[in-house]
């Protein structure tokens, strides 16, 4: 079934892949190698002197309880973002797949948040949850004060984490929605109709037919969402909380930025980048293996 084009000679195919390879090398391979190199060195904050220190940066990292706490926080953050955004997107996709009036409008509206820049999304969420002026923040504060508490995500670490999780998940709902809708529509209508004629209704049909047939899409999205939460949420977090209060919303990428950019510890920051990179490689490899096996 695979369609292959055979080029005569080598020059043309080489010229065709060259731009892509060049981009990859300049923007990915070279910086990655550079990060590996720097992670083995200790550099002064002004980049004037550099000493080879072997794996000292890594050893220091894994001996640092703050780093371990950041790893744990990141894992919690990633799974929270991934599961919330997928759990919200799934029913939306199921409804959009149904024959309902005005579904074109409905679908288009659901895709909009994806086009909002992370920093802008963060500003929107700040306006929503701000304790004094927020549309949600003010009533929430009043509600919590009944129980003797307060709503202030700028002071309360738990609340801050909840807010960045919700903001990050919200941004990803559109993406998940598109893929889940496509996944649902690629399930042959006749299979669903066969289940209908067999007597399956509502929730049961969803659980025994749609969900299993959607599972490759769900797994793909889980990986993509984990990677998104681990990396692409930097803009949202930086704009909302800068990792605070007291590192309560500091994930691994935020820490990489904080340590390398703000604190000038390029060696440790590079080592953290390399660890993150290995994490993504592992996730992607798992995904390829799994998707390679999943063929109905």
């Amino acid at each position, binding site marked *: 079934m695979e369609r292959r084009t055979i080029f005569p000679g080598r020059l043309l195919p080489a010229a065709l892949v060259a731009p892509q390879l060049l981009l990859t090398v300049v923007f990915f391979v070279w910086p990655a190698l550079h990060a590996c190199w720097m992670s083995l060195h200790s550099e002064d904050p002004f980049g004037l002197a550099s000493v080879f220190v072997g794996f000292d940066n890594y050893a220091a990292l894994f001996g640092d309880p703050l780093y371990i706490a950041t790893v744990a926080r990141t894992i919690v953050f990633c799974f929270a973002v991934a599961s919330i955004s997928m759990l919200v997107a799934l029913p939306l996709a199921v409804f959009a797949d149904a024959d309902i009036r005005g579904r074109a409008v409905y679908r288009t509206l659901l895709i909009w948040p994806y086009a909002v820049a992370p920093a802008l999304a963060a500003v929107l969420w700040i306006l929503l949850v701000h304790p004094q002026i927020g549309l949600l923040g003010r009533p929430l504060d009043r509600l919590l004060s009944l129980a003797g508490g307060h709503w202030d995500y700028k002071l309360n670490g738990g609340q801050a984490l909840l807010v960045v999780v919700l903001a990050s998940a919200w941004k990803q709902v559109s993406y998940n929605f598109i893929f889940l809708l496509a996944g649902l529509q690629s399930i042959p209508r006749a299979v669903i*109709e066969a289940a209908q*004629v067999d007597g399956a*209704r509502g929730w049961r049909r969803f659980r*025994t037919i749609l969900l299993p047939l959607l599972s490759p899409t769900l797994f793909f999205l889980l990986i993509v969402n984990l990677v998104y939460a681990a990396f692409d949420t930097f803009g949202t977090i930086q704009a909302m909380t800068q990792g605070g209060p007291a590192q309560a919303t500091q994930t691994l990428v935020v820490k990489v930025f904080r340590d390398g950019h703000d604190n000038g510890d390029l060696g440790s920051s590079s080592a953290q980048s390399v660890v993150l990179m290995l994490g993504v490689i592992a996730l992607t490899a798992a995904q390829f293996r799994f998707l390679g096996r999943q063929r109905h």
Partner: protein
Amino acid sequence: MARLELDGLRKSFGATHVLHGVDLSVGDGEMLVIVGASGCGKSTLLRLVAGLDAPTSGRVKLDGNDITRLDPSERDMAMVFQNYALYPHMSVFDNMAYGLRIRGMSKGEIGRRVGEAASLLGLEASTLDRKPRQLSGGQRQRVAMGRAIVREPKLFLFDEPLSNLDAKLRVQMRAEIRKLQRRLGVTSLYVTHDQVEAMTLGDRLLVMHEGRPAQLATPLEVFERPADRYVAGFIGAPSMNFLDGELTGDGAAVCLKAGCALALPFRLTAGEKSVTVGIRPEYVETGRGDLRMQVDLVEPLGSETVVHGRLIGTDEDLVARIPGAVPSGEVMKLALPPQHLHLFERKSGRRILPSQPSASSDG
């Protein structure tokens, strides 16, 4: 095992009318084949009966109960789909057991029914653990049948179940479906575009044409007394020949463009004088007669020969099926035996000559 009744069933998609009102009654244990060209509304009709589409108007009744508004899951019917629509993530056993589990049947009973269906269909026990993608086309077809059989439903619905099989397997499965349906005695609706399937499978045929029932009758009756020109041309291969003709004043003969007068077995005095004369290729006699045909193409099929040509003096084409080998010559003499003629009103296409079963005036 049930009686199915359709009462003025109509279906429109927006301004497009797909079904223009179908009345139908299918008896207990009967196999009714719905046949027609693509786009005639036959599949839509089946989907309305299954409840997968809602009719614009009209009623579906099963054993006298109005089920028009019931969900497909509540209708107690089983359907075999054209592409089988097996559940790809389930084993063969689970595919067949699915509908039974939904009905809350006991494990033992499910195992017994699936086992019975599998052996009835010649599915080996080893295939029960496989996934549909590991099966051949023929096996998938059997599993789809099995899924319908185990349910022991009131009604079987077949939507072109054989059209994805290769020719040899199709003939084999056709015979098996017929035997199975007779044996189980389940009332069945079978949709197909294949006239051979229709003729061999059906107790009765419903020939559909542009969303209307053109004829409802036994296969032989449809063949021998087609209700109109469309049915006459649709059933039978090669198709029936049609020639324009005019009834003579006394209604005892027809004049063709080719000039000669065909004497009719009896007088036709009333009605339209402009007619279409139909004759099946196998009844065209060659080597004698007053008509002359210019031969264009000869197709030897071994036991018989199909000759395509043009009637000399006209622009009308004619096909003849002649037993045996190729007769020689560029021009062929033809005769059209009057007892095998079908007459249709030219304008409406309706049949006007009551058929003469071939035995009546032969010899």
